[in-house]
């Protein structure tokens, strides 16, 4: 199938998904308090958009900042864990333990320390997205073919040169895989923190909406989140295709 046809098919199927949701809701007479129909959500989104806009920006800001910090920390920790067996033994159990804890329990502590608002949202977005990045970077480094490292070793390269020239490029497919997970988690983290303590952000909107049973506003918030997630995913996909093209090579034969 050609690229274009696949695009069209995908779009059609995604559209079909929403259409089915709509039809099922109408057919089963699902109450809009429980699960609003996509058209209702879209309508709410449209009419309330001016009100939502600053909240969207707020959440996007917290998420991206937290995500950026999380990527930096995650890569650093991942490199440490992937290259040092001591770090592996120490940091992995601690990280796993910490990641098994629901962040809802941690956010109040952030709030108590840093007050409510943007800071805890950024921090939550950060801590929640570190773990997948660490795991994937560490795995990527650990599974690097020794033969490739040998190339640099014979040249007398230092460990950091080997890391930069072999380990990290080799771990890029792992890294991008983790980014997709991490960015969705970042959104979840930021929103979570906003639901607990913030006057702004989608999380706050959702909390207000849900405590007032404005279900379609709640779902509008969820839609916005999903859309932002997909948009960032698209950005990473684009980068991924450029950076890790070597790993997903497909032979291109000209057919005349």
């Amino acid at each position, binding site marked *: 199938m050609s690229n274009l046809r696949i695009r069209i098919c995908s779009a059609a199927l995604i559209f079909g998904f929403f259409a089915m949701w709509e039809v099922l809701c109408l057919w089963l007479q699902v109450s809009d308090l429980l699960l609003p129909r996509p058209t209702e959500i879209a309508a709410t989104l449209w009419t309330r958009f001016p009100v939502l806009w600053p909240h969207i920006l707020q959440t996007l800001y917290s998420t991206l900042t937290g995500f950026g910090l999380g990527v930096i920390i995650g890569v650093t920790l991942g490199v440490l864990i992937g290259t040092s067996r001591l770090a592996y033994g120490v940091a992995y159990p601690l990280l796993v333990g910490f990641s098994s804890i629901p962040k809802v329990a941690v956010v109040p502590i952030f709030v108590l320390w840093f*007050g409510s608002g943007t800071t805890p949202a950024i921090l939550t977005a950060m801590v929640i997205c570190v773990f997948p990045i660490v795991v994937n970077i560490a795995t990527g480094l650990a599974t690097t073919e020794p033969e490739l490292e040998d190339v640099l070793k014979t040249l007398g390269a230092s460990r950091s040169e080997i890391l930069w020239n072999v380990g990290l490029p080799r771990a890029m497919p792992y890294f991008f895989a983790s980014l997709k997970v991490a960015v969705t988690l970042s959104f979840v983290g930021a929103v979570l923190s906003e639901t607990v303590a913030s*006057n702004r952000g989608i999380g706050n909107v959702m909390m*207000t909406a849900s405590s007032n049973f404005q279900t379609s506003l709640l779902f509008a918030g969820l839609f916005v989140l999903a859309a932002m997630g997909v948009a960032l995913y698209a950005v990473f996909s684009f980068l991924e295709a450029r950076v890790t093209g070597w790993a997903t090579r497909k032979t291109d034969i000209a057919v005349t």
Partner: protein
Amino acid sequence: NIRFTLGWKTQGSDAPFLLAAQKGYFAEEGLNVTIDQGEGSAATVTRIMGGAYDAGFGDINAIIQNAALRPDEAPVMVYQLWNRPPFAIVTPNDRGITTPADFEGRTLGGAQGTPTTRLFPVFAALNGIDLEAVEQQNMAPNLQEPMMIRGEIDGAFVFNITSWFNLIANRQDPENDYTWFLFEDYGMDLYSNGMMVSRRLLAENPDAVAGLVRAVNRATLEVARDQEAAMDAIMAFDNLVDRDIEHARLTFSLTNLMNAPEVAEIGMGDLVDDRLARSIAIVAEGYDLERLPEPSEIFDRAFLPPVAERLFEVVLN
């Protein structure tokens, strides 16, 4: 600089604080107050004890609970707003529950740890219900009404001010189709929300506390007379809420929670120590407290303006 936390997300009943902020009453007292939304009227106490906030709108019963354990850290109530408790058990009429005794053999739902749920054993004892015979199910507050409507539970431990409007949002008629067992009608004459401040603020900056109380008092009396202006302040703070519902909620809080007979005598913001002592005993029983705090540990009326300046008169418009 004062960091102030509300009891929950923005609600009509928060009007006194938001109006004071919007009209600049805090500024007039030389205070720079930043108001944040909260995570629950009990969490207000934790937030203040943790030091993240200096003052907040929260539940006096949570103060009692904490004062029993950590007398030096628990915040102090300085301006009592809700003279009557919102604690209630709500049940749809079609379940045929008309007296507390009917709860036996039924399932009631509620969030664990909210005062209504926690004080139910006392409620049961006072009204001769066999606690063992009542099944309780834990669930998040915003699930109570839908679960009740779907018939999964027969009643819910609620705050009437919240649940009333949740039922309206769920297209129910809370007035005609539901029975409300208000705790105050069943021997549990508790106080509830008011403005509390941290011990530290109280010790280090009593003037600020006085200013805070003055500003809030002024705004409260104004809210009682002019709800439209109050609503404007609320919408300015948070334009996500539904103005009509919050207006109704504000009215509800003014008439059902704040406008008690007692208030006419002692004025808004104050309370009666004997009644507080009684409620401390009730709370202690419900929460298995080892120590009964003194009323003076809980409430400090030193900052209240004279009664004449606290005369509360509700004019609905």
